[in-house]
């Protein structure tokens, strides 16, 4: 069964204290791994798509990496405005029936950055 596990569940950092969030996945044929940011009561905001092991993408203080079993979201010198829940999702298998495959989400990491 396709599965996504995120750790830690919650992380508290001081402003400027770099860290990493983990996303482990078990999937039959990875088509893509996605990172989203979600603020309380809002919809997830798209951050990155990673397609194959070894791929890396960066955006401001965030850098996402991918291996065959897990992905990391590295946060460098975080600021209080980076506080949010970070969600990881995978898209598995091949498109069929004219449909884009569903996203399978983890439960997220709640990040709090204190000034």
């Amino acid at each position, binding site marked *: 069964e396709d599965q996504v596990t995120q750790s830690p569940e919650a992380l508290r950092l001081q402003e400027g204290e770099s860290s990493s969030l983990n996303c482990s996945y078990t999937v039959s044929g990875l088509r893509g791994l996605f990172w989203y940011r979600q603020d309380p009561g809002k919809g997830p905001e798209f951050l990155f798509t990673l397609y194959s092991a070894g791929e890396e993408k960066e955006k401001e203080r965030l850098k996402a990496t991918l291996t065959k079993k897990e992905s990391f979201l590295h946060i460098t010198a975080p600021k209080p405005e980076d506080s949010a829940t970070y969600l990881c999702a995978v898209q598995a298998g091949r498109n069929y029936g004219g449909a*884009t495959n*569903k996203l399978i989400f983890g439960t997220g990491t709640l990040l709090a950055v204190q000034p």
Partner: protein
Amino acid sequence: DAGVTQSPTHLIKTRGQQVTLRCSPKSGHDTVSWYQQALGQGPQFIFQYYEEEERQRGNFPDRFSGHQFPNYSSELNVNALLLGDSALYLCASSFLGSWVANEQFFGPGTRLTVL
């Protein structure tokens, strides 16, 4: 460019009632997916519509149904509401037309409370 829009923002219903939620996809997108997100959990896939047909369905009962219109907008209907249906309902749009993983962009969500 307007992103994904959803209405209403909030909704309060009582057990046994029926509810309809609405979604307009991002400009240029032709596929709409619906997700349910309980508090503290990741979004769970309900179903996906493409070319006005349901193409994929998650593990949700028949009380959950939907529709897609010729302009690609979509509705989610839930009948015989249960307390456990209280959640944030998210609509995500994407463009089918690429062999690679399709990025899905989310709307702000509709918060449904069932009393």
